[in-house]
């Protein structure tokens, strides 16, 4: 069953290459996948979702998918929701429909494969598979300085992937298998002296993919340049691969190694929240601002991971990280999708060219307002659920007697990020939607009913998790 979920987008991609109507195929495949994904969320424990196909005998290699725990289920849910929204809200340039929708599907299939794979080789390979169309789309259909942006993301993520690969190969050699579950049960085979090295490779490798400071500067130009579905799928879904990898592999396999690097990690995540936060404040365009903001918010997820590393018995940290990964994926995809609308309807994303758009496009303003409020962590929307759990998780071990530890101090400093993100988001909203109308916004079109569908899909997900985080948390019970 799970193989169907992964191969449906890939099959649709092939069908598009063979001449099927691109948009229609992409939308119907993504819609079917959404239904499958929701069904999976209800039935993932039944065992019927596992799939295994032997590929090689020696070393034993299986094309295998399964749901080892609720984390994969939530990531799969995130992928199918964002994919449908992305293909619905995108608009291909004249004559490039095949490339545009085909690549989007391939990114989606790659991400789903990586989140569902239970075998290390395919875990890695599917992510690489998703990166190729990402680079292509930015290089061929991007805006602005697209070649430069494409080169940068290619080099950066390519290097990151290779560093990551070194760490993964090292791990699989030590544990003697590619099966992730077996690797974890063989974790005693990872000797203490290798832990630090492996952990460093994994932090840098996965970290680069997640735009951990200072490996972040590929992200903003790439997202600013990328066509809307790519920005939505990469920032929303594919980027979470690195975090997923840390949770799935690094935390269980090299806990001592991660603990060794805890202090540097805390410094780096503060770099994400504060340094990149200030970089975000100084942006003059909506697209680069959103790109930087998505880098900034990764810091909070790393904070939960740091809390988990520091206190392995911390039951709040993993759910906090996963809820925030989901929430961030949905909200950033919504923001990129709407930014694309703003550009199509007004011709610009430069703050100096915009203003008063709420008058001509109240529907767009309303939905963008929800997305912006989600992104700055307003209660009732998903991101708050994640953030408040992250903060609580980093204070889980504090009892007043011993004073504040490094994780708590990092948490306190990064709560200032809550102010920073309000500064840039409200400024952006003020500059784009409020104030008197200007030439570009006077006659701008509002969202039509059809155009609202993808946005409302994401808004619904934001409200669902914001009002009832237990929807996700109940999927995570078995991890604890």
């Amino acid at each position, binding site marked *: 069953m799970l193989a169907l979920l992964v191969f449906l987008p890939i099959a649709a991609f092939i069908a598009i290459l063979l001449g099927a109507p691109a948009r229609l195929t992409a939308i119907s495949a993504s819609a079917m996948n959404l239904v499958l994904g929701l069904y999976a969320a209800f039935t993932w424990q039944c065992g019927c979702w596992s799939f295994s196909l032997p590929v090689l005998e020696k070393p034993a290699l299986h094309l295998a998918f399964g749901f080892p725990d609720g984390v994969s289920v939530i990531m799969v849910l995130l992928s199918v929701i964002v994919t449908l929204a992305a293909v619905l809200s995108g608009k291909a340039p004249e004559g490039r429909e095949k490339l545009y929708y085909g690549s989007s599907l391939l990114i989606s299939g790659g991400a789903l494969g990586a989140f569902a794979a239970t075998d290390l080789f395919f875990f890695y390979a599917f992510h690489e598979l998703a990166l190729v169309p990402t680079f*292509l789309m930015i290089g061929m259909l991007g805006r602005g300085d697209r070649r430069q942006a494409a080169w940068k993301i290619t080099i950066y993520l390519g290097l990151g992937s290779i560093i990551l690969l070194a760490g993964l190969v090292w791990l699989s050699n030590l544990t003697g298998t590619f099966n992730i579950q077996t690797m974890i049960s063989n974790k005693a085979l990872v000797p203490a002296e290798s832990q630090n090295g492996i952990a460093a490779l994994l932090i840098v490798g996965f970290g680069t993919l997640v735009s951990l400071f200072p490996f972040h500067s590929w992200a903003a130009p790439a997202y600013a340049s990328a066509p809307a579905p790519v920005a939505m799928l990469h920032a929303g879904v594919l980027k979470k691969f690195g975090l997923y990898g840390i949770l799935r592999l690094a935390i269980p396999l090299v806990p001592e190694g991660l603990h060794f690097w805890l202090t540097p990690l805390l410094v780096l995540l503060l770099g994400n929240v504060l340094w990149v936060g200030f970089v975000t404040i100084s*942006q003059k365009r909506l697209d680069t601002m959103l790109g930087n903001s998505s880098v900034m918010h990764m810091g909070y997820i790393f904070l939960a991971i740091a809390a988990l590393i520091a206190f392995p018995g911390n039951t709040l940290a993993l759910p906090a990280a996963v809820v925030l990964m989901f929430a961030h994926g949905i909200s950033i995809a919504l923001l990129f999708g709407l930014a694309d609308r703003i550009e199509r309807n007004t011709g610009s994303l430069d703050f100096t060219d915009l203003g008063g758009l709420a008058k001509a496009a109240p529907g767009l303003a309303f939905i963008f307002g929800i997305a912006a409020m989600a992104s700055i962590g307003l209660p009732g929307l998903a991101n708050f*659920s994640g953030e408040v759990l992250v903060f609580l998780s980093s204070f889980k071990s504090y009892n007043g*007697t011993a004073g504040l530890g490094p994780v708590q101090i990092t*948490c306190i400093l990064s709560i200032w990020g*809550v102010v920073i993100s309000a500064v840039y988001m409200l400024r952006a909203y003020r500059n784009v939607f409020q104030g008197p109308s200007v030439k570009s916004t006077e006659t701008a079109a509002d969202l039509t009913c059809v155009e609202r569908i993808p946005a409302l899909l994401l808004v619904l997900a934001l409200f669902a998790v914001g009002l009832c985080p237990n929807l996700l*948390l109940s999927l995570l019970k078995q991890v604890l």
Partner: protein
Amino acid sequence: MTLPWILLFLPLAVAVLNQLVLKKTGLAPIISTASAVATFVIALMILGQSGTAAFKWATIGDFSIEIGFKLDQLSTGMMIVVTGVGMLVHIFSLAYMKDDSAKARYFTGLSLFMFSMTGIVLANNFIMTFMFWELVGLSSYLLIGHWYQKDSAADAAKKAFLCNRVGDFGFMIGILMLWGITGHLAFDEMKGGLEAFQAANPAIFSGVLSAAVLCIFCGAIGKSAQLPLHVWLPDAMEGPTPVSALIHAATMVAAGVYMLFRLQFTLGFEHFEGLPASTVIAWTGGITALVAALMATQQDDIKRVLAYSTLSQLGYMVMAVGLVHGEAGMFHLFTHAWFKALLFLGSGAVIYACHHEQDIWKMGGLFKKMPITGFTFLIGFLALIAVPGTSGFFSKEQILEAAHEKEPILFWIAVIVAILTPFYMTRLFVVAFLGKTKSENADHAHEVGPLMFVPLVLLAVLGLVAGYPFIASKYAPAYHSHSFQLGPITYISIAAVIIGLIAGFVLYSGKEKDPLNIPLFRNRFYVDGFYDNFIVRYFQDAFAAIVSFFDELIINGLIVNGLSRAAESTGNQFRKIQSGSLQGYAFVFGIGVVLVIYFTVFHS
């Protein structure tokens, strides 16, 4: 116990209904007002009840965050203020906003506000308080920015939200620390946890508790607009005037006082006596009361005078809480809510009648032209300056007594404020309501309709009588029966009122323009300018620009661009040999990666 749930969720349901269904039908104002009336009735029905109920909002193992309510004398009394003022403001708004093209959005905002404020009042744990605290910030943002096409309104809304966020930064840290110390989030369980902590760590107890309380106090500084985060409240007057009455005078800004008192009540007042944090709170309140009153003496916009007066009165309340006489502060909160809402709605009626003129020096003679508004405004004025017999007198008396008992310097500061208050209010009343009309707009003013004056009359009655024990003991939150005695404090307070009144009359009677010009007060001690220019422009934005520059230069420029340039030149070499497009490169990259994996993994 379903009534409290209805009380909480009815306004939310109405807000959602308005936004999704009724936006274009014109029914939204009526539905919102009906819900405000219904919530007031429910608040009366649950008055004085006690009990608690909750459901789990988020559960992880044995840890959970709850949404629930806690009924006691404090919360049910506070609900009377919130729903009572709320109901009257809804009714007033029906008339005030009737020509506004976006009145559905306005009433949706009001309902959202009622929901959020109810949540703060009823909350049974600190995370829930924080959640609704943020939602109150959102509804205030929406309502201040109601006329978002005006630059000043949009900027004011943003400023209000950000000032509150700065306070909430501390608030969140304080909640986390208190959770660590007590081990609980629910109010009912915190006290036991705190006392266990005290028994285990007697030496550091007061220091750690002070740190946590001060962090939490940051939240109150933001929401109740105390120094140094007071700057947003006067700007918030850009919102429609009924909003100023409800949110920026009677309820939301009082939430900080309510929350602090709830904190003391929850943890036990005895722990706050002599706590360093309490001293900081008391002085912050006292200084805010004084500085804001000085600023109020030189404002020309009728709403801004009232806004600074609100700051000053909130300072009184915060001071009382800091002196661990929160019951006096809560009593003043209760009386102030009615007469300040009255003054704001009265100013709204004036502004409405004068075609949106807000400068008091362009009004004049309104008492004759608008007798009901003028007369009710007079009552609000008398209550605010604490003339004996009005409600404000009783509550201010309690605050003065508390200050006299605990800290003489703060007592004398409070007395100076008690002189300044009648001074600036007399200035306002004499200039705007008495004498000759000073502009054409004021010439054409005439009395407002019954939808507007009925709320004024009701509020005026409450402004007169709310301080008497027969009302206060029943409806005021945390009311302590307090035997009122004539004594030196009463004489000082009456003398202060008389001095202020006479000074105001002598200086401003019959004047065409302000005989005083004190730039320091007029320019609000230059605090706003300091924030806008120094903190925002030079500090935050310049700092952000510098960080951004280094990000671009070092991390992006030298490291990344160096790498990608190297790669690009390699790519260019390849391009000569190979297909020559990025497309080709990307596929080669993909295949290459797979080959690399294959060789490293399977042939090792």
